[in-house]
């Protein structure tokens, strides 16, 4: 089992390390957000009931965003494999689809994690104002990994159902962006009107963002243990969904 998972993971890593332009490209948007929102709003936005400035506030959100977008893209890669025929090579081998799906999920999550970590390092240089402990960093890392796993699996689930990239824009606009927008990545969730807050609390990414925030900044309105349970449950659900749909792929 693990040898095949490793094989698939290894392929994903090789492709990732080889495509430096893609690597840099997918860091562009989060960096842009970080700089423009962070510096742009830093002086005018105050987080109620907190000494933290806005830059420090959005860093965890931008990290979560990087991990989430990168992992959805990694999952969606399966469509390219379908179109370029490589998926056939994998599916005709004497290995189970479960192994392939796990390898792909782990590969995508690892890549997303690394991308998120790069943003984390950059933001600490820009000045997030966090005094993160090692323990806090580990907590943030766990949440980053969960976001990576769940959203790669989600991407694979989507890719399993799509014939080509045509539907991708639709998924981006009506699923991915709302999930990001509704999470507490860019605004504090406890000062929202009640109706919006309930939407936010229904968004799994909120728990990921707040988990990272707890890890890095040490404070968060959501109990990190509860956040962990929600994210772990969401990850299991997405991996199950991805596995079921990936098994149904017909070539």
């Amino acid at each position, binding site marked *: 089992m693990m*040898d*095949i998972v*490793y*094989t698939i993971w*290894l*392929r994903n890593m*090789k*492709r990732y390390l*080889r*495509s430096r332009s893609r690597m840099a490209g997918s860091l562009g948007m989060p960096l842009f957000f970080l700089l423009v929102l962070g510096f742009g709003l830093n002086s005018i936005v105050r987080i109620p009931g907190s000494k933290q400035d806005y830059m420090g506030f959005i860093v965890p959100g931008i990290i979560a965003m990087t991990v989430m977008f990168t992992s959805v893209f990694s999952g969606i890669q399966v469509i390219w494999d379908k*179109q*370029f*025929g*490589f998926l*056939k*090579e*994998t*599916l*005709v*081998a*004497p*290995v189970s689809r479960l192994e392939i799906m796990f390898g792909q999920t782990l590969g995508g999550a690892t890549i997303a994690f690394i991308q998120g970590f790069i943003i984390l390092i950059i933001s600490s240089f820009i000045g997030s104002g966090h005094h993160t402990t090692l323990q806090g960093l580990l907590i943030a890392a766990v949440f980053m990994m969960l976001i990576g796993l769940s959203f790669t699996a989600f991407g694979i689930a989507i890719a399993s159902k799509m014939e080509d990239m045509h539907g991708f824009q639709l998924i981006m606009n009506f699923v991915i962006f709302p999930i990001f927008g509704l999470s507490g990545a860019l605004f504090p969730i406890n000062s929202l009107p009640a109706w919006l807050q309930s939407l936010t609390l229904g968004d799994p990414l909120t728990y990921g963002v707040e988990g990272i925030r707890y890890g890095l900044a040490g404070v968060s309105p959501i109990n990190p243990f509860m956040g962990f349970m929600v994210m772990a449950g969401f990850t299991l659900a997405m991996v199950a969904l991805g596995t079921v749909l990936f098994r149904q792929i*017909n*070539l």
Partner: protein
Amino acid sequence: MIEVENLTKRFDGHVAVDNISFTIERGEIFGLLGPNGAGKTTTISMLATLLRPTSGTARVNGFDITTRAGEVRKSIGIVFQDQSLDEELTAYENMDFHGRLYRIPRNVRQQRISDLLSLVELADRKNSLVKTFSGGMRRRLEIARALLHEPKVFFLDEPTLGLDPQTRNHIWAYIERLNKEKGITIILTTHYMDEADRLCDRVAIIDRGSIIALDTPDKLKDEVGGDVVTLESRDTEGLYTQLRKAAWIEHIEQHDGVITLTLHNAERHIAEIVQLSTTNGIDIESISIHKPTLEDVFLRLTGRTIRVEEADIRDRMRMMHRLHRGGG
């Protein structure tokens, strides 16, 4: 080695493979021949366990394709009609990925990869990315890759599609060698009739999902009987009507503005054909005699040609499509 029983595949009501049965012996080179959409790829996909049959079954290397898919997969190697390499990886990495998927131990894997890459003459390019490879190089790499786990049965779906004649000969030479030296059973499809004729021990001609003939190429051609004469004229109708009366013609057929005759000792009758047309005031534009080919076999059985020309255009479109996608 392969036993196919009443294998059928339907795609939403449309029958792609219609109740076919045949047996392939160990060590045989077996050809599946037929026009576009005949059902060749669908048949191979079912035998390779990638598609579930609608009904019927088959055994490959003694294993049932529906109940023992895992064993079947271990027994087979396959070169797909459309490319299936990872272009962002090197030749070596594509091979290595395959070797790991088939759980070949590291030292054996490394040895075989270098042997096979030498066999297909890609040893010096093993660390180049596949996206820098030509069509022929990619095909050779795919063949090497499919052999890495030493399959007992080897499927090749149009392995020489869109390649130049020199590369084609090259590839067929490997395949023949494999078959001779390792006794691998080979099932291939091709559009190129002459290649099937030269290479295959037996050929199944498949049309609209059904097998319409199955025998050695020689026997199939013998059944056409005698020589084949092809005539072109501005007045095919008239010529056809006249020639139909000639008793020494065994078979006459009109298709796509061409008349095809089958007769014995064609050399002797050519003069008669010419005379017959001149007395009736019909001009013959071209006349040719040849020994029957598999193309003639197909024509005789179906009244249609396999149309290699059309296939070539499709190949080119396919390649363009691929390049287009590759660029995106």
